[in-house]
């Protein structure tokens, strides 16, 4: 499966940068504009899936191979769990306590700025990373699986 025709390849090589940028924008500005961790992460995943469809699986694997994607998945999930846990440790308050409590919450100048919602942008980034990596992983795993079982040994190192 060497990917699609030349037209699709050239267009997707331009478009992939825009999609990736748009996904990052959606993740970072999740608490100000519609979007957020989930939508941004899914858009990031669709950018990689576009690469895989247009250029074939080997090209996509070179960019983001299977072990790296599963590691990113675990790192994103651990980051999100860490944000939750340090709410617990920070003054033993609450499990998901929003511990970055600047006084901006009350006043209005810094209300609608990028860095204005405590842990929400951080968990947005963690969720975006996790959703993006895991959805690309799913499509990759499904496309790798060949009935003749030639590939897919993510962990047969024993």
């Amino acid at each position, binding site marked *: 499966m060497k990917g699609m025709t030349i037209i699709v390849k050239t267009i997707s090589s331009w478009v992939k940068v825009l999609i990736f940028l748009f996904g990052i924008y959606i993740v970072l500005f999740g608490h100000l*504009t*519609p979007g957020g961790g989930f939508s941004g992460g899914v858009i990031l995943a669709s950018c990689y899936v576009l690469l895989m469809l247009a250029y074939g699986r080997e090209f996509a694997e070179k960019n983001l191979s299977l072990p790296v994607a599963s590691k990113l998945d675990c790192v994103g999930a651990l980051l999100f769990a860490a944000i939750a846990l340090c709410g617990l440790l920070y003054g033993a308050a609450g499990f998901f306590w929003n511990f970055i409590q600047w006084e901006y919450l009350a006043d209005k100048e810094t209300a609608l700025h990028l860095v204005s919602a405590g842990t929400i942008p951080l968990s947005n980034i963690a969720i975006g990373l996790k959703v993006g990596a895991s959805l690309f992983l799913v499509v990759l*795993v*499904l496309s790798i*699986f060949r009935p003749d079982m030639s590939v897919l040994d993510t962990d047969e190192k024993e």
Partner: protein
Amino acid sequence: MHYALCFLLFVIGLYCAVTKKNMVKIVIGIIVMEYAVNLFLIMLGYRLGGVAPIIDKGQLESGTGQIAASFINSSVDPLPQALVLTAIVISLGSLALMISICIRTYEKYGTFDITQIRRLKG
């Protein structure tokens, strides 16, 4: 009347998931049921002539920084939207698992038709 149409979509999905013999058709039935429930949840929170629950410069009164009263009594309910965001990704997760089981069963049995995969009794 809208809820009833949404419920009809749910029942069509249930019918497809229960009576169809092809594995991919059963998976399609379950997906249609998930869509219907997500739609039902969002329709619960809708308000006639409502506004999306996002506060921007316009809705903040310039002086006091309080949220404009017009926004408060015209904003749509944010809670069902949070639930549906979770439910959409749950349905994608279970879809991925179901399709991987279907592909693996197709590789073993050579067919998607559950009547021919009747190795198991009971």
